[in-house]
C-alpha cells in the first residue's frame, strides 16, 4: 500500500519554535519516504490548526498523520478526533512529542534540538506506516458503585451516586460510619457542631433505598475491570447478629470488661461489646473478641444471657460476600502520624501532651469530659495551653515533607474554643506560616488573634519535657530572635495527616497508584483530580491528600459525578492498544500469565495457549517483554514497528 503521510509541526508559540527550527523540520520531512504533505503552524491545537489537519487529510488523501507537538497525554485525543472528522481512523494519527522530550529540555543547544526533533518525527512516521486501523473495545457496564470508606467523603459520594439513580454499596471497616468527622467538636471557620451536621448525612446514607450499608466489613479480593468489577467483601465476625439486634444497649451496659475507646482516642474506656459512640449508624454493637472475657477464658457470657433477642453469637465467623460493581470510589481517609515517632516531644510518654484528635474529644460536649477542657494527667483545667503546628509535617529530614494543610486552621479553632471555655486561660500557637487558604479562613485566624487573644509565636518548638506537673516547652520567637520557654499545663500537637494504615494494602489490591507518602495518585493533578489512572477507580477525601471537610465533600461529589457519567453510557469504550497472542507461535509456557499485573493474561486449557482478555488488558507490555517465543505482540506497537522506529532514530 502506498503511504501518504502528513506531518504537522506545531510551534506551540515559542515553546517549540523558540528552540527548534520548525520551518526547517517541516521542509526536511517533506522529502522523507512516505510523506505526502508537511507543514508547520503556530498552534496546531487551535481550531484553525485542527482544520489545517482535517483539510490536508482530505486534500492530500492522507493515510496517516504525525502531529509533532506536545505530549500525547495532552492532545492525542484532540488530533485523533480531528482525524475522525476527516474520515481517517483515529489510530492512524500519532503524536511526535517534540516539546517535553525535545525543546523544553534542550534549550541550550538549538541546532541539535532541531536534529533531535527531526529524528523523533521520523520514528513516528515509521510507526504510522505500520499502524492498523483499530476500533475501541466496547465493554458493558454494571451500574452499581462500591464506595470504600464511610467517613464524610465516602458518605457524600454514596449519597450523590445513589441520588443520581444508581445502587451503591458503602463499605466501612469500623462498626459505624462517620469517620473522623464524627469525633470532631466544632468545625472551622463557622464553628458549627460537627456531629450536628454529619449525623443527618449518616442517617440519610443508612436509610437511602439505593445504598447498601456494610459496616464492620473490609474489601477482600478484587477482580475484573472498569464496568465489571467482582469483589469479595469480608464481613468481620461481630459476634452479634446485627440483623436481629435491636440496639437496646443492654449488653454494653452489663459487660464487665473495659478497654480504651478508639473513638475517644484513649481518653475514656469502652466495653468489650460496644457501639463506638451514641449516634453510631448503625446503632448496633460489635464484640471485640480480644477483650471479651468469654472469648478469652470461657467465663462470663453475660451479654448472651441478657440479650432479649438472642443476638449475641460467640461462634460467629468471618463471612464473605461477592458483589459486582461497575465503579469504585476509594475514600479511605487518614490517620494522624503516630506520636511515638516524635521523640523530642516525649514520643507519647508525656500525659499532658495530647494529639489534635484527643483535644477534639476534650472539647466535645459528648466527649469524656463533657466539653470541659481537662488535662489527662490530673483532670485539672489547664490555664496555659500550647498548640504546635507542623508536628511531623514539612519535615523531609525526619518525617513527612508535605504540608498537612488543615493543622493551622484546626489548631486555631482549638485555641479559640479553648478560650471560649476557659476565659482566663492563655493559648499559645507556634507556627511557621499560618496557612489560611480557604473561604473565611483568614478572617477566622484574625479573629482568634484579635478577639480571643491567642498568642501566635513564629517558631518551631525543639523540645517538650515534663517537670513538676508542667510540660516545659522549648521554643523560639524567630521574629525577635529569642529562645522562648513556657511552662504549659497542656500541649496539643498538630500531627501530620497520613493515609489510613490499611489504605496502602487496599491500594495494592485495587492496583491503583499511590504517591511516595501513600496518598492515592490522581490521573492528572489538575485536569483529572478525582480519577485514578486505572479506569473505574475514583478518589475522594483525605486518602488522596490532606484536606479539610469542604474539600473532601467537594471531591466526593466530583467523584460521584464521574461515576454517574460512566454509568450514563450503555457501554464503556476502552483503548484497543492491547496485547495479542499469536496462537500458532505460543508454546503455552504461561510466563505471560504470571507477569500480567492486571490478570488479563489467562491460559486456555483447551487450546493449551495463552489468551489475553481484551476488556482487562491495559496494554502495559509486560507479557510482550516476558514472552520467550515472541508470540505476544502489542497492537500498533509490534516488534517490527519498534525496530523500524529505532532504526530511524539511529540513522545519520
Amino acid at each position, binding site marked *: 500500500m502506498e503511504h501518504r503521510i502528513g506531518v504537522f509541526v506545531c510551534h506551540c508559540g515559542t515553546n517549540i519554535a523558540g528552540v527548534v527550527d520548525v520551518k526547517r523540520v517541516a521542509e526536511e520531512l517533506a522529502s522523507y519516504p512516505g510523506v505526502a504533505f508537511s507543514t508547520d503552524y503556530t498552534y496546531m491545537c487551535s481550531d484553525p490548526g485542527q482544520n489545517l489537519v482535517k483539510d490536508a487529510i482530505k486534500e492530500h488523501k492522507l493515510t496517516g498523520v504525525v502531529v509533532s507537538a506536545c505530549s500525547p497525554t495532552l492532545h492525542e485525543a484532540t488530533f485523533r478526533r480531528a482525524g475522525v472528522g476527516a474520515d481517517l481512523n483515529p489510530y492512524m494519527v500519532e503524536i511526535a512529542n517534540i516539546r517535553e522530550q525535545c525543546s523544553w529540555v534542550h534549550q541550550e543547544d538549538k541546532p541539535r534540538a532541531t536534529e533531535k526533533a527531526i529524528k523523533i518525527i521520523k520514528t513516528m512516521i515509521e510507526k504510522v506506516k505500520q499502524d492498523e486501523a483499530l476500533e475501541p473495545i466496547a465493554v458493558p457496564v454494571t451500574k452499581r458503585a462500591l464506595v470504600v470508606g464511610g467517613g464524610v467523603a465516602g458518605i457524600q459520594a454514596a449519597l450523590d451516586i445513589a441520588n443520581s439513580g444508581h445502587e451503591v454499596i458503602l463499605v466501612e471497616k469500623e462498626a459505624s460510619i462517620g469517620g473522623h468527622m464524627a469525633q470532631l467538636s466544632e468545625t472551622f471557620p463557622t464553628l458549627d457542631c460537627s456531629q450536628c451536621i454529619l449525623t443527618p448525612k449518616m442517617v440519610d446514607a443508612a436509610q437511602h433505598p439505593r445504598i447498601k450499608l456494610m459496616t464492620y466489613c473490609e474489601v477482600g479480593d478484587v477482580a475484573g475491570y472498569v464496568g465489571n468489577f467482582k469483589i469479595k467483601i469480608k464481613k468481620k465476625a461481630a459476634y452479634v447478629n446485627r440483623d436481629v439486634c435491636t440496639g437496646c444497649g443492654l449488653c454494653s451496659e452489663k459487660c464487665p470488661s473495659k478497654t480504651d475507646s478508639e473513638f475517644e482516642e484513649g481518653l475514656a474506656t469502652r466495653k468489650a461489646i460496644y457501639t463506638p459512640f451514641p449516634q453510631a449508624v448503625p446503632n448496633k454493637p460489635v464484640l471485640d473478641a480480644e477483650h471479651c472475657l468469654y472469648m478469652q477464658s470461657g467465663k462470663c457470657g453475660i451479654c448472651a444471657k441478657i440479650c432479649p433477642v438472642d443476638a449475641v453469637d460467640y461462634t460467629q465467623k468471618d463471612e464473605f460476600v461477592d458483589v459486582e460493581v461497575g465503579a469504585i470510589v476509594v475514600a479511605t481517609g487518614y490517620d494522624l502520624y503516630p506520636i511515638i515517632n516524635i521523640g523530642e516531644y516525649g514520643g507519647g510518654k508525656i500525659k499532658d501532651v495530647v494529639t489534635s484528635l484527643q483535644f477534639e474529644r476534650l472539647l466535645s460536649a459528648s466527649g469524656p469530659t463533657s466539653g470541659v477542657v481537662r488535662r489527662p494527667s490530673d483532670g485539672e483545667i489547664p490555664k496555659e495551653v500550647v498548640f504546635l503546628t*507542623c508536628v511531623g509535617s514539612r519535615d523531609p529530614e525526619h518525617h513527612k515533607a508535605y504540608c498537612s494543610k488543615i493543622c493551622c486552621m484546626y489548631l486555631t479553632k482549638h485555641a479559640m474554643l479553648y478560650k471560649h471555655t476557659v476565659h482566663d486561660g492563655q493559648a499559645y500557637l507556634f507556627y511557621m506560616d499560618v496557612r489560611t487558604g480557604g473561604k473565611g479562613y483568614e478572617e477566622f485566624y484574625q479573629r482568634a488573634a484579635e478577639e480571643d487573644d491567642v498568642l501566635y509565636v513564629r517558631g518551631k518548638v525543639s523540645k517538650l519535657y515534663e517537670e513538676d506537673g508542667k510540660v516545659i516547652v522549648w521554643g523560639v520567637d*524567630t521574629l525577635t530572635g529569642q529562645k522562648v520557654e513556657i511552662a504549659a499545663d497542656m500541649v496539643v500537637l498538630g500531627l501530620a495527616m497520613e493515609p489510613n494504615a490499611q489504605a496502602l494494602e487496599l491500594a495494592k489490591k485495587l492496583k491503583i497508584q499511590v504517591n511516595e507518602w501513600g496518598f492515592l495518585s490522581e490521573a492528572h493533578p489538575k485536569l483529572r483530580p478525582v480519577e485514578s489512572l486505572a479506569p473505574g477507580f475514583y478518589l475522594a477525601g483525605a486518602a488522596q491528600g490532606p484536606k479539610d471537610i469542604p474539600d473532601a465533600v467537594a471531591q466526593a461529589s466530583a467523584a460521584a459525578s464521574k461515576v454517574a457519567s460512566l454509568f450514563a453510557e450503555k457501554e464503556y469504550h476502552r483503548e484497543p492498544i492491547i496485547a495479542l497472542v499469536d496462537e500458532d507461535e505460543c508454546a503455552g509456557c504461561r510466563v505471560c500469565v504470571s507477569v500480567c499485573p492486571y490478570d488479563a493474561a489467562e491460559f486456555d486449557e483447551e487450546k493449551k495457549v495463552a489468551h489475553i482478555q481484551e476488556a482487562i488488558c491495559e496494554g502495559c507490555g509486560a507479557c510482550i517483554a516476558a514472552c520467550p517465543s515472541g508470540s505476544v505482540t502489542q497492537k500498533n506497537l509490534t516488534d517490527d514497528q519498534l525496530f523500524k522506529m529505532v532504526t530511524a532514530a539511529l540513522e545519520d
Partner: protein
Amino acid sequence: MRLKLSAEVIKGDLVERVAELSGQNLSACYQCGRCSAGCPVVEEMDIVPSEVIRLLQLGQVEPVLDSETIWICASCLQCASRCPRGVEFSSICDALRAIVLRKRLSGSVVDADEVTRTMVSDAPQMGVVGALRKLNG
C-alpha cells in the same frame, strides 16, 4: 537602618565560601528557628543560630564573622539533629570559624599558651585539644 539587597549582595563570594566550606544548602532553611529553640548555649549568643542563617541568606557575612555566636557553639549537633530541612548549623559555624581562623581575622579565640598553662593539669585532655582545634585552628 536600611539593607539594600541586590543579586550581588545576596550571592557574594564570601557567602558562597560559607556554603561550600560547610557543605550546607543555605537556601534550604525556611527559618523555623528550631536550631535556636533547642540550642543549649543560645542564651550566650549575640545572634541566634536561625538569625545567623538568615543573615547569610541575605548575603550579610561580615556581622556573622564578627559575632560572639560562632565561638560559643559547642558543636553538640542538637541543631543539626533536629533541623527539618537537614541544615547543619554546627557545620556552618565551623565554616565561619575556619574563615576567621584561616585568615586570623580576629583575636576572639582561645590563647593556646594560656590554656595550656591554666588548664592542662586539670581538664581532660580531650577538652583542651577539642577547644584548641575548634577555637584556635
